[in-house]
């Protein structure tokens, strides 16, 4: 997975996840607090610069991570820009580009892009295991954490199973026509469905064999300089918010 690779290999991998979370939170607040679209765009550029130059994420990979979100932004903005009008006299429906609609598009897309860069900053610099440890420190319910930990682990196991099955089915022309594709995909998903119970049972047996008495326990990763990181992140995050609010 694209984002995973960067999360494990970037310059700020060893910075404290709490600090990176604080900076991202600052970014979110700045995105929503921005008085003008221009302010939100500047916030987005600053966060993107921190991600690219600071954490050293390759720009090509960054663009590829952003693109799918832009697709949604595009089609949603399309419907914001045009106003649907029902003419009372003739009863005709008409679409019109309105200035107020364009204003809204600028405002919403600038805010979305700023918030998206904040999210990308967090996920491109912090592996999910560190984020789950952060959620644990934030007192997330234990059941939810367990689902997250197991989900993260099994994600790659099941992805590998899907990949192997797809190769095997494709090699036998399983995806040659749309009709065959639905059939093959159904077979694949049915096989995967069964694996849910089989693999869960195997995990349970493994835990039992190690005298598991209920909750799953984990060692917390230790980060040097977490205090210093938190102070820097708080300062940078507040600067973003101040910039967004003070822009005129």
């Amino acid at each position, binding site marked *: 997975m694209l*984002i995973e690779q960067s999360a494990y290999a970037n310059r700020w991998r060893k910075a404290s996840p709490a600090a990176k979370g604080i900076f991202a939170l600052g970014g*979110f607040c700045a*995105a*929503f607090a921005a008085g003008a679209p221009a302010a939100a765009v500047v916030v987005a550029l600053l966060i993107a610069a921190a991600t690219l130059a600071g954490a050293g994420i390759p720009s090509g990979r960054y663009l590829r991570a*952003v693109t*799918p*979100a832009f697709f*949604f932004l595009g*089609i*949603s903005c*399309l*419907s914001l820009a045009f*106003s*649907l*009008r*029902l003419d009372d006299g003739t009863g005709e429906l008409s679409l019109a580009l*309105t200035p*107020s609609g364009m204003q809204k598009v600028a405002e*919403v897309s600038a805010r*979305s*892009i*700023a918030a*998206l860069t904040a*999210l*990308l900053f967090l*996920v491109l610099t912090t592996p999910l295991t560190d*984020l789950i440890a952060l959620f644990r420190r934030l007192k997330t*319910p234990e*059941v*939810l954490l*367990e*689902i997250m930990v*197991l*989900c*993260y*682990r*099994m*994600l790659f196991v*099941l*992805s590998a199973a*899907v990949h192997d099955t797809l190769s095997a089915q494709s090699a036998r022309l399983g995806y040659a026509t749309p009709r065959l594709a*639905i059939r093959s*995909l*159904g*077979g*694949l*998903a*049915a*096989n*995967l*469905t*069964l*694996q*849910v*119970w089989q*693999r*869960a049972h195997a*995990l*349970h047996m493994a*835990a039992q064999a190690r005298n598991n008495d209920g909750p799953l326990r984990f060692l917390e990763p230790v980060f040097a300089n977490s205090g210093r990181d938190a102070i820097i992140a708080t300062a940078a995050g507040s600067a973003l918010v101040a910039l967004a609010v003070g822009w005129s």
Partner: protein
Amino acid sequence: MHIMEGFLPVEHAVGWSVASAPFVAYGLYAVKKRIRENPEQRMLLGVAAAFTFVVSALKLPSVTGTCSHPTGTGLGAILFGPAAMAPIGMVVLLFQALLLAHGGLTTLGANIFSMAIVGPFAAAALFRLARSLKLSFAVGVFIAASMADLLTYVTTSLQLAWAFPDPAGGFVASFAKFAGIFAITQIPLAISEGLLTVVIFNALIRFNPQELKDLKLLDGSEAHA
């Protein structure tokens, strides 16, 4: 179709999170009870979440030629029950935001409401209704899976229309715009997802009827179909 990061105004983002919270809390309570009665379920839910994530990443062949993904909410709701789908769906949506930058943290509440609450509850209710009307198993599965997908997208359109009412036509015009645009991709997708889910259950009935009977989805007579 997830609402992207930062798209909703702050009141709506907070409002939908507050609306989703009781469902997730009830789901967690139900899950805890299930784990206490049957410790093996502890592992099952995590694996189920991974399964839902992986299924929603599969590429569906679509009529319009666009690349589309199933939501997996109908399948999950029939297999694991709608209450458990709220926390499972929450984790899946969180992971999609964190691993794929698909959806977002500020819009997580709104996306949970449409994909992990409305979709699964609608699927479970429709599946039960279809079974009580003596419709065949396949028809029930098709209705549940395709309607769950469709209602998810209707909910998303409602959420967007409420947040961004049309300056001239208001809420209704705005809903028509959002729903109209999404309909192009979502209606063929709902049909393909319904068909796919039927094919999945057909394969399960043929090769693994015992598992379905254990889940109380099939009665004895249908298991040998």
